[in-house]
C-alpha cells in the first residue's frame, strides 16, 4: 500500500477543491453541530452534506465503510452505557427485549451520537479526498510553521512503517530463532521485548534522519518554494470567507440566544 494515510486517489468533486476550502468546510460543519440543536443538526448534516459530497467525490463506499468501522463501537457502548446507566431523575424507561433503557439516557446517547457522526465524518471525508502532502503544503503556505508540517508528513508515512518495523523486529528476532507465533499470552509477553529494540532502533534512525534534514537545507534561511502548485481560484476564496462568516454568525446567534433565555 502507498503510505498516504486515508487518501483515495479519485477524480471527484472534493478532490478538485483547494485543501483550505475543505478545511474551512469541516470547521463550519463541526461548529454547526455543536451550536445548533441536536440530534437534528447532526443527522441532517450527515445525510444532507457529508453523504452527497462523498458520492460526488466517488469515495462514498470507503467513506461509509471507515465511518461505520470507527464509530460503531463508540455508538454501541454509548447506547448501552448511557441508555442503561444514565443518571437521571426522569423515571420513564423503554424496554428492549430483556433490557430496560432510560428514556433520558437514550435521548442523550442519540444527541451525542448524531454529533459524533459529523465530528468524525467531516475530517474523515477531508482526508479521504485530500492528499496529505497537498493539505500540509496548503496549510504551510497559509502560515502554519513548516516544522509542524514536516512532523505531520513524516509521522503519517512512519505509522505504517513503524508497524511494519515492529513486525520487522519480530521477524528479525524470529529469523534468529525466537518463537513469537504462539498463544495469546505468549504474544502479549512478546510485546515488551519488542518495544525496546523498536524504540532504540527508532532513536538511532532519528539521529541519522536529523542529518538528512540539515543536509537538505530544511533550516536554511530565506524564502521557500514548492515544486507542486496548488490552484486556489477566487471562487473558492470567496466561498471560504462565506463559510467563516456563517460560522461567526452561528456563534453570535448562539451566545445571543443563551442570554435571551
Amino acid at each position, binding site marked *: *500500500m502507498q503510505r498516504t494515510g486515508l487518501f483515495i486517489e479519485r477524480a471527484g468533486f472534493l478532490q478538485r477543491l483547494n485543501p483550505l476550502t475543505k478545511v474551512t468546510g469541516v470547521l463550519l460543519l463541526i461548529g454547526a453541530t455543536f451550536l445548533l440543536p441536536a440530534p437534528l443538526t447532526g443527522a441532517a448534516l450527515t445525510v444532507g452534506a457529508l453523504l452527497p459530497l462523498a458520492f460526488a467525490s466517488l469515495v462514498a463506499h470507503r467513506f461509509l465503510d471507515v465511518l461505520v468501522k470507527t464509530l460503531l463501537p463508540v455508538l454501541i457502548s454509548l447506547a448501552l452505557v448511557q441508555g442503561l446507566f444514565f443518571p437521571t431523575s426522569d423515571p420513564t424507561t423503554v424496554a428492549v427485549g430483556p433490557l430496560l433503557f432510560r428514556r433520558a439516557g437514550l435521548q442523550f446517547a442519540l444527541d451525542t451520537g448524531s454529533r459524533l457522526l459529523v465530528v468524525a465524518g467531516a475530517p474523515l471525508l477531508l482526508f479521504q479526498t485530500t492528499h496529505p502532502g497537498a493539505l500540509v503544503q496548503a496549510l504551510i503556505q497559509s502560515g502554519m510553521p513548516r516544522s509542524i508540517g514536516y512532523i505531520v508528513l513524516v509521522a503519517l508515512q512512519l505509522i505504517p512503517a513503524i508497524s511494519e518495523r515492529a513486525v520487522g523486529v519480530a521477524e528479525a528476532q524470529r529469523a534468529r530463532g525466537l518463537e513469537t507465533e504462539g498463544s495469546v499470552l505468549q504474544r502479549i509477553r512478546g510485546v515488551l521485548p519488542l518495544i525496546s529494540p523498536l524504540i532504540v532502533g527508532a532513536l538511532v534512525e532519528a539521529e541519522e534522519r536529523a542529518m*538528512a534534514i540539515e543536509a537538505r*537545507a530544511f533550516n536554511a534561511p530565506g524564502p521557500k518554494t514548492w515544486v507542486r502548485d496548488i490552484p486556489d481560484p477566487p471562487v473558492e476564496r470567496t466561498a471560504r470567507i462565506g463559510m467563516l462568516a456563517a460560522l461567526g454568525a452561528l456563534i453570535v446567534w448562539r451566545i445571543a440566544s443563551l442570554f435571551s433565555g
Partner: protein
Amino acid sequence: MAYCVALFWMTVLSRRALDVDLTHLRTNHADMNDVLQPHTRIALHNVTFTYAGATEPALRDVTLAVPAGQICAIIGRAGAGKSTLCALCAGFVPHFFRGRLTGSAIVDDMPVATHPIAELVRHVALVGSNAFSQISGARFTVYDEVAFGLENLGVPRPAMIERVEWALRALGIDHLRDRSPYALSGGQQQRMVIAAALAMNPPVLALDEPTSQLDPPAMIELADVLRSLSRQGMTILVAEHRLEWVADVAERVVALDHGAVLADGAPASVLTDPRLCEHGIGWPRPAQMAAQARAEGRWAPERPLPITVADLAAGLRAAAADQESMNGQSNTPHGLTVRPVAEMDEALSMTPVAEPVVTLDEVHFTYPTGVEALRGVSLTVRRGERIALVGRNGAGKSTLVRHLNGLLRPSRGRVLVDGVDTRTTTVARCARSVGVVFQDVRNQLFARTVRDEIRFGPRNLGFAPERVDALTEAAIDALDLHDVVSEHPYDLPPARRRLVAIAAVLAMDTALLVLDEPTAGLDNASIALLKRLIEQLTERQRSVLVVSHDLDFCYEALDRVVLMRDGRIAFDGRFAEVDQVQTAALDGDVGLPIALRLRYVCP
C-alpha cells in the same frame, strides 16, 4: 497543476544532452565563484578534531587544499577518519557531531566553525554513508524527495523542475519518479539520495562511500557524472573503500591513517605507495597483480605499477612479448595471479550430488505496491556450495534472499527449506537451517552488548549452554570482535556494526549462511576477514550465498555465480567454467572480475 508542468518539462528536457543542462545549471553559481580561474575551495589547516567523549582524535593535524573543480578521493581503513573529514567539510563536524576542533577549516570561503549548517548548506552538500537513513521522509514520491532540498533553498519552480529532471536522469532513476522513496531497492535508494544532493548543485560536494550499494555500471555512470560536474567547476570530495573506482574517478588521492594524512598526490603515485600496504589500506587490484607478476618476472622491473586494468594488461602483454623474443616458447596468457577458488582447491569443490539445503521452484513475488520483483526463479543451493548472487540494482536479489528463510512467501511457486515448504512453517523453523544477514542491518540488532547480541541466536535455537558459549566465542574470533564484546552494538561505527550482525547469524551455525552486500562499507582488512570466514565454512561443508556488487570479491571467495536480471535468473554457472557468452552476459550487467577481464576482454 504543477505536475503537468513537470511532465511538460520532462518531455522537453529529455531531448537535451547532459552537459547542455549542466552548463545551464552552473550559470547561477557563476556569480558566486569564478569557475574560470580555479582557487582553493576546501582549505583545511592543521585541523584536529576529537569527538565528544572520545579519547583519540578522529582527525590529527590535517592540512589539505582542494582547488575548485578537483575530484579528491579520501581513502583509509575503517576508523581512519574519512567520514569525519567529509562531515567537517559540510559543517556537521562540529555543529552536529560535537567535539573539540582546532585549526582552521574554510570551505567555499566560509569558515566552517563559525557558520551554522543552515548557511553552509548553500555552499556544500553532504551525502552520508548510510543510503538507507537519508530519506527526508516528508515526501511521498522519489520526484518530490529529490526536489525537497531545492524547495528549502527557495529555487524558483522552473529551475527546480529542470534540476530535478536532470538529477533523476543522471542517476538513472527516471523510471522510479512516482515510487514511494521507501519502496526501493538498496541501490535505488542510494541513487536517490545522491540525486537529491546533486540537484542542489552545490559548489562543493562531499560524498561518503557513494558506491557502497551501486552496481558496477552505475558506478561507472556516477564516475562520468562526477567528472562532467567537476569540469563545470564543482569541487568533489569522495570517501571510498573501492580503490579500483577511486583509481578511475579521482584526480587526486589522500590516504588517511588514524586521522592523519599518510599520503597525498596523484592517484598513480599514491595508490601504488608501499606505505598503503604497510598500513593495511592495500592497493587497487591491478597494482597488486602487477607487483606479483613483477616478483615472478612477468613484469618489467623498470615499468611503473598500473592502477587500471588496461595498463595492467598492456604491461603483461609487453612482458610476455619480451619473454617470447628471448626464448621462443610463449608462456600461457599471463598466468593469472588470482584464480577462482574452484581451481585452487579442487578437493573442496563440492560434488553435484550433495543434498540441497534450499530449493526455489518457479518462484514469483509481487510487492503490495504491485512491483513484480520475482518472475519465476528456480534455484537449488546444495551443501558446501559457495554461490555469488549478482545483478543490477533492482534485479530482485534482496527479494530472493528474503524468500530463503520464509520472511517473504512466494505469490506463486514454492520455496523448500530442508525439504519443508516455507508456507507451511515458521521463520523460526527455517532459521535453524538458513541464517540471513540483511542488506540493511538496522533492525537486526537489539541486544545491549555485542556478546548478548551474538548469543541471542544460538540460545533461541535451544542449543546446550556449552555449545552456545563455544559458538559465540568462535563467532567473536571469526569476525575479530574481541575488543568490543561488552560495547552496545549501536556505539560501534557502522562497518563494525555490520560485522556484529554477521557474527550474530554465524553463531547459529546454520547449514546455509546468506550475506546480502556484506562488503558494503568494509575496508580491505575486514573483507579479507570475510574471505577467510567463507573458506572455513566451506571446509565444514556449510553453504554460503553472497549477494554482492564486488565481482572481484565474488571471484576470489566463491565459485558458483548466479546472475539475476529483472526478477529472473539470466544464467547460473561456475566462475571456473564461464564461456565467452556468459562472460558477455556478466560484463553487460555487472562487469567482470579483473582476472576474467584479462582473459577475455583484453588478452
